[in-house]
């Protein structure tokens, strides 16, 4: 909300400059966004009189003028053609400045000295609307009466100096979307008296009538329209509004149209109540009905756009058609025309929620709708319409007809709140005296009677003691609040198991050289296809109703596409290596939770993505083993996975605890790499942190350091390629019983001698009994069992050392 200091001064004395005023108001709750100081950018521009105009000898379009600046005469060369001798014009002298940082200096124009510039309305930062009668592309010709001001500063003569503050008004304070409301805030904040220039309006009594000039009003949707007041003006003379009004409208950023429309806008700015004016003759049957729109009903609004409505929208209608979308915009069919004779001023209050929805539906957010949607006072509506007709009389725009039509089905409730001094001080942590509280409240027009605070009609936001506390505090001063620490029982600040595990996992990965990434949860259908996510999973994606773009349409059912995209970005930037991880969520609509109004499954997922010179499947596997060891998940199997299409079918595995898959890892499928233009092999891992937490054992247990010596045996064998070393290890472990301390694969090779489709593997086994030294016989028995089993089950062929 923009307000000029000049207008605010009508409500309060202001004895500080606008910057200081802005600071003070910011600290009492009206935050300043910008301060515009108009006129400061115009320097050394004066009133001049053109004495003589001569053609420039060396130019077809230039003229040489002699100008009287009061105490001096100068020569100025110009290309303008709308000046004549004797005209009074603004002159930018040598060394002057114009809006937009334009600097004017003495110079030669085709050989003739020019000591400045004569210029147009636009070059002064003004518009033709501000100065009717001026032309757009020509010199601004000033009134003859200014001849006595020759040589004087144009900023003073035309009164161009103006400070305008733009305030950020919070949605609970629609009353401050008005100069009156801001004026009240200024007065309270500066500790001045609020001068109420509208006292006559407050006290005005206007007779209620059923019908004025044949006009009648009915409300058929009282749930959406709380009050509708109409007053009529006849013998209207449509004309430009006076300079002072245009000027104030402009300061608030509103364009001047004509006197009647300007009055509606002026009252809205002054009092915060949007108004509407229309031609009585455009109202069929002179009968206004405030009703719900019919489904599919159409109306062309003042901006010449056709809008389609439904029964949730409220319209102002005559007997045949809608003439306005209530609270949003008037209809073109009832617009004020230059020949309009009788005007109806409408001041109404609509249910804010409905206006908000309607404005959204038709895609029109207007000055009016943005005020209505916050909930306006029905009491203020009457003041506004009376003020409007007062202005009509004041500027002689027409003849006001006695009486008002006032349909007021739901009387505005006035809120009363107990002034509980202790509660307020406890809530704020202050020691403000009761009388001080009352003084502040009364300055804000909140009357206190018998410890009951009565909210004024324009403060519908005040409902609770907490609201009073805020009012008191903001005037008392937020900066006077002390700082204390909570005096209460000690509470335990500790991470829960999942949070601890998540933190530990991140630490292991960072210490292993991985960098953490953050990705968006959004994906597109195309992303899911590029990553070859299986269809069943794609079906579980959650669709956003109003996405930013197709690219961000779905909530990902898996984190794979996000990681693939990040790898692709890095590959595209020619980064030779990338080792990345991400802890974030997937989102899965498993059983139509979303459609049933329930929260869908959202699991905490660790994703690792890597490519580069020193990584392969086993690097990734080792990383995950370290992660699991760190968080105490000790019993798991690594099982080959061939069906997950995002991965290389021969290089993918699941990590399982029992039958529960806690992680999938492997080399990215070459087709997926191609889809993402990644030129190197890449590796991917997805692990479910929630499951890891479930299988994480609480504590590590100390195992006694061995006292008896170990026995080491090596074993080498030839097996078919199809045999997984995991199978061999399982047999070794099983047959060695509890005496096996460790089994380690130390060699694996293939050559012609062994034959195609076969491989040689060699293990080092360490045996130990924690109670005694093992004998050779014992070990030999075990080794024989192991070998027999390997031969029997896997067709292993033992190699002699």
């Amino acid at each position, binding site marked *: 909300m923009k307000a000029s200091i000049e207008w605010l001064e009508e409500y309060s004395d202001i004895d500080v400059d606008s910057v200081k005023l802005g600071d003070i108001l910011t600290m009492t709750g009206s*935050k300043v966004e910008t301060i515009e100081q108009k006129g400061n950018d115009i320097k050394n521009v004066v009133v001049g009189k053109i004495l003589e105009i001569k053609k420039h000898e060396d130019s077809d379009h230039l003229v040489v003028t002699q100008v009287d600046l009061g105490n001096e005469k100068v020569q100025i060369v110009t290309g303008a053609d709308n000046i004549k001798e004797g005209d009074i014009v603004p002159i930018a002298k040598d060394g002057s400045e114009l809006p937009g940082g334009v600097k004017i200096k003495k110079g030669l124009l085709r050989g003739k000295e020019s000591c400045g510039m004569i210029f147009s309305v636009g070059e002064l930062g003004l518009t033709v609307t501000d100065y009717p009668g001026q032309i757009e592309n020509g010199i601004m010709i000033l009134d003859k009466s200014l001849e006595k001001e020759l040589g004087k500063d144009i900023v003073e003569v035309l009164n161009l100096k103006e400070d305008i503050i733009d305030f950020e008004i919070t949605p609970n304070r629609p009353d401050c979307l008005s100069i009156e409301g801001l004026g009240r805030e200024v007065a309270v904040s500066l500790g001045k008296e609020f001068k109420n220039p509208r006292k006559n309006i407050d006290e005005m009594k206007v007779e209620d009538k059923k019908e004025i000039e044949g006009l009648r009003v009915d409300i058929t949707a009282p749930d959406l329209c709380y009050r509708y007041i109409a007053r009529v003006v006849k013998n209207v003379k449509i004309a430009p509004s006076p300079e002072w009004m245009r000027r104030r409208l402009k300061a608030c950023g509103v364009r001047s149209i004509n006197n009647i429309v300007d009055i509606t806008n002026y009252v809205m700015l002054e009092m915060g109540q949007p108004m509407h004016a229309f031609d009585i003759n455009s109202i069929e049957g002179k009968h206004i009905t405030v009703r719900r729109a019919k489904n599919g009903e159409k109306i062309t609004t003042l901006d010449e756009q056709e809008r389609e409505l439904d029964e949730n929208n409220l319209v102002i209608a005559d007997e045949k058609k809608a003439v306005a979308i209530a609270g949003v915009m008037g209809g073109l069919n009832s617009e004020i025309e230059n020949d309009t004779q009788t005007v109806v001023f409408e001041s109404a209050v609509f249910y804010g929620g409905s206006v908000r929805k309607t404005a959204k539906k038709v895609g029109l957010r207007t000055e009016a709708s943005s005020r209505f949607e916050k909930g306006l006072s029905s009491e203020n509506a009457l003041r506004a319409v009376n003020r409007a007709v007062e202005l009509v009389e004041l500027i002689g725009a027409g003849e006001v007809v006695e009486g008002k039509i006032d349909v007021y089905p739901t009387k505005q409730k006035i809120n009363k709140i107990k002034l509980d001094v202790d509660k307020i001080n*406890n809530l704020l942590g202050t020691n403000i005296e009761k009388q001080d509280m009352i003084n502040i409240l009364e300055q804000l027009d909140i009357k206190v009677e018998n410890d009951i605070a009565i909210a004024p009609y324009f403060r519908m936001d005040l409902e609770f003691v907490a609201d009073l506390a805020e009012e008191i*505090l903001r005037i008392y001063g937020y900066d006077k609040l002390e700082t204390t620490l909570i005096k209460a*029982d000690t509470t335990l*600040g500790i991470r829960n198991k999942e*949070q601890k595990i998540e933190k530990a996992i991140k630490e292991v990965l960072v210490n292993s050289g991985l*960098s953490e990434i953050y990705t968006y949860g959004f994906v597109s259908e195309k992303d899911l296809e590029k990553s070859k996510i299986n269809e069943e999973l794609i079906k579980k994606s959650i669709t956003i109703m109003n996405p930013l773009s197709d690219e961000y349409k779905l909530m990902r059912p898996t984190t794979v596409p996000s990681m693939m995209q990040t790898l692709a970005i890095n590959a595209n930037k020619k980064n030779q290596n990338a080792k990345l991880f991400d802890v974030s969520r997937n989102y899965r609509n498993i059983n139509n939770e979303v459609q049933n109004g329930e929260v869908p499954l959202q699991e905490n997922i660790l994703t690792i993505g890597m490519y580069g010179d020193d990584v392969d499947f086993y690097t990734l596997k080792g990383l995950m083993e370290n992660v699991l060891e760190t968080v105490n998940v000790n019993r798991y199997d690594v099982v080959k996975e061939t069906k997950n299409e995002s991965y290389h079918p021969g290089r993918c595995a699941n990590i399982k605890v029992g039958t529960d898959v806690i992680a999938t890892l492997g080399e990215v499928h070459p087709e997926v790499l191609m889809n993402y233009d990644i030129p190197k092999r890449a590796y991917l891992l997805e692990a479910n942190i929630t499951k890891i937490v479930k299988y994480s054992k609480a504590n590590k247990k100390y195992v006694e350091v061995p006292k008896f010596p170990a026995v080491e045996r090596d074993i080498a064998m030839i097996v078919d390629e199809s045999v997984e070393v995991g199978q061999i290890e399982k047999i070794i472990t099983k047959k060695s019983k509890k005496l096996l301390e460790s089994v380690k694969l130390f060699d694996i090779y293939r050559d012609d001698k062994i034959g195609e489709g076969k491989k040689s593997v060699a293990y080092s086994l360490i045996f130990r009994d924690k109670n005694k030294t093992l004998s050779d016989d014992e070990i030999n028995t075990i080794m024989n069992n192991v070998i027999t089993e390997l031969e029997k089950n896997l067709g292993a062929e033992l190699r002699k050392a």
Partner: protein
Amino acid sequence: MKEEILKIEEASQNSIKECEDIKLLNELKVKNKKKKGELTAVLRTMGKLSPEERPVIGSLVNQVRDKLTLLFEQKEKELQKKELLKKLETENIDVTEPSKKITLGSLHPITQIINEVEEIFLGMGYEIADGPEVEKAIYNFDKLNTPPDHPARDIQDTFYITEDILLRSQTSPVQARVMENQKPPIKIICPGAVYRSDSVDATHSPVFHQVEGLVVDKDISMTDLKGTLEMFAKKCLGENTKIRFRPHHFPFTEPSAEADVSCFVCGGKGCRVCKGEGWIELLGCGMVHPNVLKNCGIDPEEYSGFAFGFGVERIAMAKFGIEDMRLLFENDVRFLKQF
């Protein structure tokens, strides 16, 4: 015979002194100890001596032997030391050559800030709470005193899944969930991702991160809120940080405030980060609105509380000097490695 012994002594002493090689010294030592050694030879002739002379000569031989042994030892140490020095000289290295190290990775700047915030509040006895990102509208709005027609639902342009399910636009729904399930005292912070319908540019992102805090107990006051935030600001942004409250409005708190901190880049003198104002808008906060407490099953007559919330990216960007928010989500390894 005595002369003979002394002669042997002198000869041996000389050869030890002159020896400069540990190998030769060892040979000499062996030679001396051997049964055929010169002193042994002397001892063998002792039988020829008179009984009076025998102990005298015997003792002399022992003295000489001890003396030589000592000399050997000394010489040996001396030569070993020399040898070591020679070896050390050959093992000289250039300490400025590149190191051999395991390359470390890095935590994302957002995580680093969240961790820092968590540590501060854990230390003050807060728990960390978590909740769904795809959330019910009732938790994101209704319970937080923002009913369906409330204009605040417009301010935060929200992504909807259905009319009732949305992407949380703030982490406050976590607060509502905790209040519903836990009796006061409640002291929590809720860090996490939130979603708003903003297009991606240098200062906006449809996904960003917030940390919100909530305290509900008996006699919680606004000065407690200010004190808590001041403590947080000092620990997170520097001991000299000052805090300033300005009135504001949020549907879920009353009174509400915006808190500014003295610029932690320039210390309040005015710079690019604080746009010359000396203050940076840090967070929104206030006393929990009585309707919110009521909606979550807590009696506002008995309990009061405060809440606050701020954006993590903004702090990360100001602290690390990152000027474009997009860098945080692009994840270029050359960017990530710097943290």
